[in-house]
């Protein structure tokens, strides 16, 4: 070895020795000293997956409740809340499902609970039933009129605003405030019970709006309504392509 190293200039020889020693040390440390789990990424990944799968489950899932609470399940099955999981309102119930007598899920009764979904909010989709929690039967618990598992209202709503709050409120501050919804929309009674199964009708032609807004209208209700020449105004478009009927003002 010494003879071989002598071939190199002194500094190079010494460096070769030092570097080889370091490499050997490093290799020994890596291959011999360091245990497999620390350096094997696949092993680490499969361990992580195992650990992740073993985490505790808190929500039991929508199928589980039916086993013991069949009655309630059947009642809920046809009502407006049929698409909700039990745990949406009752919170995590896995512990209860495994040990029914020890822990009971929450039964929310406060008036602040239902408005979390049902309070009026203009960002909520059209047609979602919304109420003003302050004005709607104040102080009475929601469940006194609405069975949470079949929450149909005690009487079928007469006003469209019960579900179409956003539209009603917008119309209420517009020039169409005096028009009932039914003036333009025919809503079969069935719509109030099963909204998605049958939709109210909507006007189809320009002539419909022309009944009040045409130049030669005889409609009494339209005495103060702005009049236009139906033949000229708006070319080939239908009226609501420009004017939003629930807030038809042209000026800002």
């Amino acid at each position: 070895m010494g003879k071989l190293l002598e071939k190199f200039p002194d500094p190079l020889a010494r460096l070769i020795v030092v570097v080889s020693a370091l490499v050997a040390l490093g290799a020994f440390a890596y291959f011999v000293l360091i245990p497999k789990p620390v350096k094997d990424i696949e092993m680490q990944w499969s361990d992580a997956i195992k650990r992740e799968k073993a985490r505790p489950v808190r929500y039991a899932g929508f199928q589980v409740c039916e086993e013991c609470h069949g009655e309630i399940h059947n009642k809920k099955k046809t009502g407006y809340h049929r698409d909700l999981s039990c745990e949406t309102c009752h919170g995590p119930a896995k512990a209860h499902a495994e040990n029914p007598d020890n822990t009971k899920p929450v039964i929310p009764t406060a008036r602040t609970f239902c408005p979390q979904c049902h309070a009026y909010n203009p960002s909520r989709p059209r047609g979602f039933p919304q109420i003003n929690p302050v004005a709607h039967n104040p102080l009475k618990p929601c469940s006194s009129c609405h069975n949470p598992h079949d929450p149909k209202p005690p009487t079928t709503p007469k006003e469209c605003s019960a579900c179409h709050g956003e539209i009603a409120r917008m119309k209420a501050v517009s020039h169409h405030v005096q028009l009932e919804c039914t003036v333009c929309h025919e809503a079969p009674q069935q719509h109030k019970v099963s909204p998605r199964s049958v939709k109210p009708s909507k006007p189809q032609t320009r002539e419909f709006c022309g009944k009040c807004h045409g130049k030669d209208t005889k409609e009494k209700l339209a005495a103060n309504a702005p009049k236009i020449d139906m033949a000229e105004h708006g070319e080939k478009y239908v009226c609501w392509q420009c004017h939003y009927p629930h807030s038809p003002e042209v000026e800002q």
Partner: protein
Amino acid sequence: MNGRRSFLRGFFAVLLSGGAIEGVLKLIPSKAYGKEVARTGKWYGYGVSVDKCIGCARCMDACKNENNVPREPFFVRTWVERYITRKNGQTIVKAIAPGDEAMPEAASDRTILRSFFVPKLCNQCANPPCVQVCPVGATFQTADGVVLVNEKTCIGCRYCIQACPYGARYLHPVSHTADKCTFCYHRISQGQLPACVEVCPTQTRIFGDLNAAASPMSRFLRMNKIHTLKPGLNTEPKVFYANLDGEVR
């Protein structure tokens, strides 16, 4: 003699440079040069119908319950944004919180043109930038398409949090490791739904196997115009949005 030598020289040069190029290519994500990976078995995806969300925030609650996420509002695995676009074109965005007082602007606020809620969560990207940058391989993609974090090996460098374009990641204040939505991996591997999907009252959130031929997921993908968030970044998100408004980032 010369000809043979120069031929051999050229030959080996090509071999070596080819080898070098191959080595460099290994560093580039395979997607970059169009290598397709076969998908067999489960490949989880998620659907969000923006039109159905009522902004009740029960999903946020359920997620924190199920996954031990710190209760403070600074750490979320999923959240819901509220967009209000006014007639002057200005858009305001706010994140809602469970237990928020219903905060409707006065109904007579006639400056509102459009308003809606958008649920957000980790997109479990098929080409995840977070996995690409993790120096120690603590975050990785499982064979069924879920991106997980190995909290035993995460060193807390926060590079993945910087790399996520969607703000889906946070540093867990107790474990000091990166954390994020896992599609409730511990639930879905037992055939259950993620907690957020479980409690959503309006079926805004849908979860399923993208490879399944008949499932809520496949119907969702068939019947809707589908969008993803920030498609220009080529992260290939697996959370698909139906009726996503262009104002959403």
